[in-house]
């Protein structure tokens, strides 16, 4: 297996198929750690991991924090709403000041696409992207890949549909990079107003008929309809979106019984997914959450393993 060479994890766009496979294999070993009575290994003892979040998050932040703690790293949480950024300090200044207290890794979520790159260039510590604007959310895609691999035993050849607001979704972008690199056949589906022009260039097919997609898929990654990004009248109403693209029991019944339904959370029940689908047998939403911790442990372990000179 080729060794890991990346000091940062900014997106799946920068990773090779081998890199992604290495994360998934490593995560499988870490999953076992979380099932023990004593859920802790000393691998990152003495390392400090800072969670720097400029956008709200519960799942991702807690998942990263648990991952770091189960590897014995020390963790620190900084929410932008209570930090000096509200006093006008720039992102890089805030980060440099935190780094000056000798931290080893920063997990960053920011509303601006590309913000983690500014940090990766300006800091000496490692940077892991926990979602930047509409660009990438690499650990979410990695845990989706992990869950798919766990359920199907492979990624290559799987038919995966991604449904929803593709335009604003960093989860969709990261998943498209990851899935296509590992040889899955990806179809994106959603309202035409929320479909980026030229998305086919990323190696995916476009479909506007959810029923057709369900019939031809092994797995569906449903996306959260980001209400906070819908001010510009992309949709006539949430109700219409739910009727056309929301997945309910009746639509799901047209597909294979083996089809699995995924969602990165938080779910708008009754919009993207009906309650009976979200809680149903074909839903793996909670498996995704469990796997998220293992995947993030693998990422922290690998990223903190590289020496400064092996930049990349």
């Amino acid at each position, binding site marked *: 297996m080729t060794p890991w060479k990346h000091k940062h994890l900014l997106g799946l766009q920068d990773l090779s198929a081998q890199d992604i496979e290495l994360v998934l294999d490593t995560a499988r070993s870490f999953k076992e750690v979380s099932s023990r009575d*004593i859920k802790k290994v000393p691998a990152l003892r003495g390392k400090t991991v800072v969670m720097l979040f400029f956008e709200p998050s519960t799942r991702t932040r807690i998942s990263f924090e648990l991952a770091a703690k189960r590897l014995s790293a020390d963790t620190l949480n900084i929410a932008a709403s209570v930090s000096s950024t509200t006093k006008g300090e720039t992102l890089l200044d805030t980060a440099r000041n935190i780094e000056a207290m000798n931290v080893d890794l920063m997990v960053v979520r920011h509303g601006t696409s590309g913000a983690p790159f500014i940090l990766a260039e300006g800091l000496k510590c490692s940077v892991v992207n926990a979602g930047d604007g509409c660009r990438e959310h690499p650990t979410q895609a990695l845990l989706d890949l992990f869950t798919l691999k766990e359920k199907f035993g492979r990624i290559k050849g799987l038919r995966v549909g991604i449904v929803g607001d593709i335009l604003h979704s960093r989860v969709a972008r990261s998943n498209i990079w990851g899935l296509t690199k590992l040889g899955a056949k990806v179809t994106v589906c959603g309202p035409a107003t929320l479909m980026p022009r030229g998305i086919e260039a990323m190696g995916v097919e476009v479909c506007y008929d959810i029923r057709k997609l369900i019939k031809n898929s092994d797995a569906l990654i449903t996306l959260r309809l980001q209400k906070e990004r819908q001010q510009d009248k992309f949709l006539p109403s949430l109700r219409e979106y739910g009727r056309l693209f929301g997945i309910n029991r009746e639509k799901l019944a047209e597909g294979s019984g083996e089809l699995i339904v995924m969602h990165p959370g938080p779910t708008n029940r009754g919009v993207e997914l009906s309650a009976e689908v979200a809680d149903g047998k074909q839903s793996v939403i909670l498996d995704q959450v469990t796997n998220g911790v293992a995947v993030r442990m693998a990422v922290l372990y690998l990223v903190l393993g590289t020496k400064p000179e092996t930049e990349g």
Partner: protein
Amino acid sequence: MSSAQIMDQDAIRRAVLRLAHEILEKGGVKGLALIGIRTRGVVLAERLRKAIKDIEGKDVPSGILDITLYRDDLTLVGAKPVVRETLIDFDITDKRIVLVDDVFFTGRTIRAALDALVDFGRPALIQLAVLVDRGHRELPIRVDFVGKNIPTAKFQNVRVFLAESDGNSDHVDVEEGT
């Protein structure tokens, strides 16, 4: 690099059989469980389990331990070593655990394994069985069951090849290192 074979297939087979007898002699199968340390310790633990079954007619539980995350040089090595799964699907508390590894050298692997094991429970007794003891301990750790003692110089390498993990036939080589 020059190398000399010091154990062949038959020697390894006899050593494993003797180890099985010695493990049984020192306490029988009651409460006994084997835990192999990845990678070749797992193969040896499996062979010991079979040998014990042939001798006593009883199956003893066996598990797999990956010590990577407990290594004391983890922050010193460059790229992180590959982590593989630990599989211990029985409760080790109050059991007599025999840790199994291929080569006993500095003792650091066993130190890591002991640290890992106590995270799984509190065994009544932990013992160590190895195929080869080559000396040069760096920690105050000793071995209970030894297949073969091989005096070596520190710069030499002892390499164990087992059919299940290495493909070719079983043998142990001493290589001249640098």
